[in-house]
């Protein structure tokens, strides 16, 4: 027992910083989030404003100048869209969709998972069987079917992503909550005559959060990859407002003709984003796992 008493957060922060790689990932993530938040400010062009792009500037290579004299540092796509701006705005959509769908799916998962764990019996069996059925289908398949029925749009993509993700959280929450439910502090809370909802959300939930945070961080990366896949397949967002997946898909047709930049740079942006999130998630898992604590 030393004199300096760390708060849990300080402990987590210092453990997290122990890995250089995780710090690098975190720094990359901060940059990516910054770009996504301030895309309209940092982009040279609004790639979704049709009056700002010109088909006469299409398929210019990285560093070439437009007819109006503007330099396209990463080149342009087949509609004359500045790739750099396209990537910035694409990141915005990808991250936005990824984070939002994860938060919503997480909330849904917590609700169902806690309900299942707390009440047990038939309710538990019902919810878990639904999860099992859901998890037995590949996520991409469910998302494809949903989008085919719902149509295009950011909201539709988010709905599809929530549907394919909530079951992971529900399962994780239930598992953790079942362990916690048998512990003394819950007994004590019961003994004090606290209401079910108070015990669930004030006592159980905080204690099952660490594994959830880890699952959620990994799932954000999954959600982003899934959104990109769906856009690549042409489902999801309107073609005049491309996200990263659609940019990659557009450039895919030009790969054989040597115009690599249309696919390459959005692909790189997608890769770096997902790597950054995974580095952070990996370290978080180590830090938050009580069994790995020194």
């Amino acid at each position, binding site marked *: 027992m030393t004199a300096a008493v760390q708060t849990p957060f300080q402990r987590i922060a210092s453990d997290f910083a122990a890995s250089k790689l995780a710090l690098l990932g975190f720094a990359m993530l901060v940059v990516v989030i910054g770009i996504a938040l301030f895309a309209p400010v940092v982009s040279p062009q609004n790639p979704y404003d*049709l009056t700002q792009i010109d088909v*006469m500037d299409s398929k210019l290579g990285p560093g070439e100048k437009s007819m109006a004299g503007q330099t396209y540092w990463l080149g342009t796509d087949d*509609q004359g869209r500045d790739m750099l701006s396209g990537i910035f705005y694409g990141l915005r959509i990808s991250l936005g969709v990824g984070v939002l769908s994860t938060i919503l799916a997480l909330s849904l998962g917590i609700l169902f998972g806690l309900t299942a764990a707390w009440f047990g019996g038939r309710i538990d069996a019902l919810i878990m069987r639904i999860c099992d059925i859901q998890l037995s289908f590949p996520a991409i398949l469910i998302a494809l079917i949903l989008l085919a029925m719902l149509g295009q749009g950011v909201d539709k993509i988010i709905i599809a992503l929530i549907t394919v993700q909530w079951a992971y959280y529900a399962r994780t929450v239930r598992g953790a909550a079942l362990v916690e439910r048998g512990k003394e502090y819950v007994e004590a809370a019961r003994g004090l005559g606290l209401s079910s909802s108070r015990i669930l959300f004030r006592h159980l939930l905080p204690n099952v959060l660490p594994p959830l945070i880890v699952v959620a961080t990994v799932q954000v990366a999954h959600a982003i990859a899934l959104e990109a896949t769906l856009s690549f397949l042409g489902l999801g967002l309107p*073609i005049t407002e491309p996200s990263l997946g659609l940019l990659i898909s557009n450039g*895919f*047709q030009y790969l054989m003709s040597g115009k690599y930049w249309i696919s390459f740079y959005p692909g790189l942006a997608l890769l770096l984003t997902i790597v950054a999130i995974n580095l952070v998630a990996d370290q978080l898992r180590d830090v938050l796992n009580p069994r790995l604590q020194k």
Partner: protein
Amino acid sequence: MIPRFIRRLAIVLLASTVALATTAAHAARDISIGLQAAITSMDPHYHNLSPNNSMMLHVFEGLIKRDENQKLVPGLATSWKAIDDLTWEFKLRKNVRFHDGSPLTADDVAFTLKRVPNVPNSPSSFATFTKPIVDVKIVDPHTLVFKTATPHVLLPSDLASVMIVSKLHGEKATTEDYNAGKACIGTGPYKYVEFIPNQRVVLKANYGYWGGEEPWDKLTFKILTNAAARVAALLSGDVQMIENVPTSDIAKMEKDKNLSVVSKVSNRVIYVHLNQSTEKSPPFVFDKSGKPMDKNPFRDVRVRKALSMAVNRDAIVDRVMEKKAVPAAQLLPDIFYGTSKKLKPTRFDPEGARKLLAEAGYPNGFSMTLHGPAGRYINDDKVIQALAQFYSRIGIDTKVETFPASVYFNRATNLEFGYMLLGWGTESGEQASAMRSLLATRDPAKGMGVNNRGRYTNPAFDKLLEQALVTMDDKKREGLIQQAAEMVMGEVGLIPLHYEVSTWAAAKGFKYTARTDQYTVATSLKPSK
């Protein structure tokens, strides 16, 4: 001992080389071709669709055929002539046999004409081509006389689109029987082997073909809708020829010494129909605040003109189509019959377009969604995005929505859209039939305006066109068609954008004769040496 051993070895080696050489020669006579679009049926009278019609030319033949420039040439008929304005006589080719060995007679032709309008559930009927014939008289087994109710100059051209089937096999046959091959028995150079929808069609040579032997024993048509997959299949040797080379790859493939790339301007015009069917705002057209308008802007010729002037056709051709297209001024390139040399592509003039919109009462523009197919025409989804750019420059708020062809065309036919990107290949190769289908006031019973999804209507134009359609004198008729074209294009009955240039690529050792009708037919593919 040793010399004997060597001799034996030599014999074995020689034998195997010979065997190898023969299999190689055999393999070279079996070819595969990569197609872009699926074949929906092997019934030649079920679905009037370019990919189907192209495929049918292998198994079946019409009385009249079209060469690679769509000129009419004798097919199953050796000669035809108009006896008077309402009577035509056709002489059949003798000694033509169906694939089962039965001879072709006038009975088969009469049966075909009876079958065409009576194919159940046909998504797009061939009846337009046979409707003008009101009476068929069989003079002798090789002579037929057709009667029409009104003078019908397009009869030979119409009949070139009708494949002759065998009466013996067709009488009780359904479309399913043709798809399964039971009834798919024609007189053409190739016979049915296998039809697997969305995957492949396999045909084998008809060695007794009247037109002489074809250089190929077996044809496998593979459906490769994905352009990159099609190119990859050619480069890997999986297929010997592909159609619709993606424009982005043409330049590189033309330089490749192991490939031969051919292209030709086609009879297909890419155009825009503006939905004029409604008094008020058509679907997906609103004012700037998103409310429907009291007037349909597309009914105003100034708005239609402005929408045509706003389009930079050169930019589309140069940038989107990689120069594999020609800016369009009418419905067919001006090398075809009935086209007017006076018509030039509308000049790109965004300022003028703005002024016209203001004059028409839309100084701040309006808003609309452009609709089009994805993957039906060359670069269709890119063309429509470029169009969206042009319109947003003249103050029109523009959105883009594309659909797979199967969904899109049905919805467009139901007039569920306002601004529709479409294409039209004129099989007959003369402009009157294209105008009859796309611009004449809609009257399906008379075969007029059958595909007029814009519902454009102009009685003066209708009158000119109808007059042209009954004028038997070729020179006089062409003048009337040109006059009608100048009138309707002046009023922007539809917005012509460009003519597609179709491209084929074949492996080394093969030579394809490019066609204006975009058809991919093995009879135009020959060994190059």
